[in-house]
């Protein structure tokens, strides 16, 4: 039982790390701001979600487990809202970006 749980955890955390790595690669490789936002939001969401899923079975008490889920929800919410704000600002060109 223990070994099964460890394997599942290992796979989830590993997959999470993989998506973080891919997201970073995408952020560096992709050609423009909007495409990079795609890599950022999806890697953020899935990478952290998988790492947290891998950690959940090892949480000492239910409050800690719920706190982890809450962190994931917050990151997801701020990721989605932040990407909308950044994209909107870039589209309308009303930020200070234009001066560069």
């Amino acid at each position, binding site marked *: 039982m223990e070994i099964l749980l*460890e394997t599942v*955890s*290992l796979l989830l*955390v*590993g997959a*999470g*790390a993989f998506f*973080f*790595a891919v*997201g*970073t*690669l995408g*952020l*560096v490789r992709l050609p423009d*701001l909007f495409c*990079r*936002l795609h890599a*950022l939001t999806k*890697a*953020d969401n899935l*990478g*952290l979600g998988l*790492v*947290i899923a891998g*950690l959940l079975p*090892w949480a*000492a008490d239910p409050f*800690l487990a719920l*706190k*982890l889920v*809450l*962190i994931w929800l*917050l*990151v997801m*919410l*701020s*990721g989605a*809202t*932040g990407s909308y*704000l*950044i994209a*909107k*600002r*870039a589209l309308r060109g*009303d*930020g*200070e*970006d*234009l*001066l*560069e």
Partner: protein
Amino acid sequence: MSEIFTAAAVVLVLTMAAGLVRVVVGPTPADRMMGVQLIGTTGIAVLLLLGFAFEMPALADVALVFALLAAVSVTALTRRRVGQDRS
């Protein structure tokens, strides 16, 4: 299990370093902000992994504060306008 969590944390720290490329290259402030955002989220994952590896549950609270500040910082950046705070 804690060795695995530590190893994953080390891998994630390496990707954070790679993410710095986008922060340095830019070209726009929004691009740099996105780099910082990804580094921030990866940092949250690292904190949680280390918290479990070394049995320091307080690190989860640090991660929670990181998550809250990330939302504020992006919003603050997008509220800046042309000509503001230039001196």
